[in-house]
């Protein structure tokens, strides 16, 4: 992962003019938020590297980060798209769990025959079932938000409770486990030394990034986030766009559910609930405007790497898993505080 070694673009080499223009070009494509995040990442790497020692960046250290990142990563992507549109999707975790349960049930209960072909087809069928369940939730969310004009927080708060209610009701809070090897591979396997789940995350995140920045849909999502009414007056069918926003969010949740069930070797109605608010935290830390309109996948990925670095380092120096949560919260407050301080300082200078 090149993001972990970002100091290739070190500005100390800016001595001649071509270098200077190159750096300006890099700066404008990377963006000020991402430069700030890169700086924070480098600073934290040096800080934790000096405390935890070199094993933090050893193969094992990096691999443990790479194994943990994808589930939060996929969930954060699922949160990112609604956030960009000026909304929020509180039902992502519940949706991830319900689709994981659907997939898990298909994988464990009705396996027809044991030949390689039928079981592979059946696993594909199970994945489809999970995606269909998620699509259903996403459509209901989109319909409530786009057509009934329910505020996104309330609509998804309600659907979160309903979806979790269905999952708890059907499973009685129990666990479904015992998956075929191919699913376990997604949670624990390596492809060329890289965790399979991380590859899945990269394969999903890149098209999402392209879609959000380069496709008409992505631009419309950001326009809605900036000013929904103006977007609608500009001739955009905002309802259709919003329907897709929540559909995509749910489908990404289903993929996160798949990764979670592969990693835990089981599916349950209440896995990963503490991730819900963390995904919002990660997105905002990654420069996504909480009121919508602005934000990039690259910023989110940087924020996720930062959060993961903090988490891995904290567990290496034996600080316990919960101090991580504190540091995450403090990091967001610190980053926002620095921004506020800078604006205040700018105004101060203008006046003085």
């Amino acid at each position, binding site marked *: 992962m090149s993001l972990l070694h970002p100091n290739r673009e070190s500005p100390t080499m800016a001595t001649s003019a071509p270098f200077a223009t190159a750096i300006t070009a890099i700066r404008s494509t990377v963006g000020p938020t991402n430069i700030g995040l890169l700086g924070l990442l480098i600073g934290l790497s040096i800080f934790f590297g000096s405390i935890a020692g070199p094993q933090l960046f050893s193969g094992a250290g990096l691999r443990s980060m790479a194994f943990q990142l994808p589930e939060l990563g996929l969930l954060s992507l699922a949160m990112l798209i609604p956030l960009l549109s000026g909304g929020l999707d509180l039902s992502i975790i519940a949706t991830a769990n319900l689709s994981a349960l659907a997939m898990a049930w298909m994988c464990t209960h009705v396996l027809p025959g044991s030949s390689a072909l039928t079981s592979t087809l059946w696993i594909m069928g199970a994945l489809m079932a999970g995606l269909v369940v998620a699509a259903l939730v996403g459509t209901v969310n989109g319909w409530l938000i786009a057509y009934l004009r329910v*505020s996104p927080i309330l609509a998804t*708060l*309600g659907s979160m*409770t309903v979806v979790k209610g269905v999952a708890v009701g059907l499973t009685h809070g129990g666990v479904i486990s015992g998956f075929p090897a191919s699913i376990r591979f997604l949670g624990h396997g390596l492809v060329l030394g890289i965790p399979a789940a991380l590859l899945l995350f990269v394969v999903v995140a890149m098209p999402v990034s392209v879609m959000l920045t380069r496709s008409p849909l992505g631009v419309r999502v950001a326009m809605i986030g900036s000013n929904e009414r103006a977007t609608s007056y500009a001739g955009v069918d905002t309802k259709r766009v919003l329907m897709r926003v929540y559909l995509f969010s749910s489908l990404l949740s289903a993929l996160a559910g798949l990764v979670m069930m592969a990693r835990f070797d089981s599916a349950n109605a209440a896995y990963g609930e503490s991730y819900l608010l963390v995904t*919002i935290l990660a997105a905002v830390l990654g420069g996504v405007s*909480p009121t919508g309109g602005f934000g990039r996948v690259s910023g989110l990925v940087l924020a996720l790497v930062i959060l993961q670095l903090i988490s891995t380092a904290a567990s290496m120096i034996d600080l316990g898993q919960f101090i991580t949560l*504190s540091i995450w*919260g403090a990091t967001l407050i610190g980053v*926002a505080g620095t921004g506020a301080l800078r604006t205040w300082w700018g105004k101060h200078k203008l006046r003085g």
Partner: protein
Amino acid sequence: MAERWRHLRSVPEARLLGAVVLLSVILAITTPRFATVQNLMDLATSTAFTGILATGLLVVLVSGGVDISFAATASITQYIGLTLANHGVIGWSGLIFVCLLIGALLGLVNAVLVSTLRLSSIIVTIATQSLFYGLLMSVTKGQDIYSLPDWFSEGLHWVFYTDSHGAQQALNFQIVSLVVVVAFTWWMMSRTSVGRQIVAMGGNPEAARRVGFKVFQLNLIVYCFMGMIAGLASLVHAQYVQSVSPSALVGRELDVLAAVVLGGASLNGGVGSVPGTALGVVLLAVLQNGLALLGVSSYWSELCTGIVILVAVATMARQRAHRKAVLQEVVA
């Protein structure tokens, strides 16, 4: 008469009251246990924690903000308060005072950050929730407190009725706290200048600032009030479950939010009432109690709650759209 009836039907509180009464009547007829003093007292005792928090959260919502950190705040106040009480440092009044004080201090942190960071309050309080909860879990190592002082385990009781068999019905700490908080908040929001200023600020913060309201001070009051409410609620919960667990409360924020929203409060600020919130809490509590009494498996109660929330928010949104359409017609 018909006109007045139509007007009444458009008041959200009246519709909620109708739903609660209808549900209660059905339950009273179908289950022999629902309409007993014992069941209603138990219901009030078990709902007090949510009810108290919902009342506090209402004030934050009306002011135009959201607070997600109150459960973390409550976990901290109850842990510190009862640790001190276990060491014999403080008694009942000291315990309540300490919890209110710590709650207010943590609320102060929220208020300062919300006012200075230019981030929406939901983001700020998600961050402080992580911060508070992470610190609490790290310091306590997640360990529960099982042995509480005798006077606390005993609780407070005010006997109001003794029946012919000598069985006593008493108001307990939970119910009295709930009634006091609801009554005080109702008075504050509808009868005091501060309360009306909070409503005005939620309705239009920029206008409130230009009129000369001290927005920072109002935020300070709102978030400190929420913190103090969380402090009191934490004691209500600890006394009810007879133990303190640092991880028991966090994760229930959204349930409380759902109850407040059900009571007609808007997330955009300026709209919401204490009676409405109380009815929202009562509706959800009666629904779950009723399902249990009717023998519905507790595994399905969350689904029923979710359906009620979805139906309620969808209805409210439709009404708002309808009102807007009528207004536009009038203007045109």
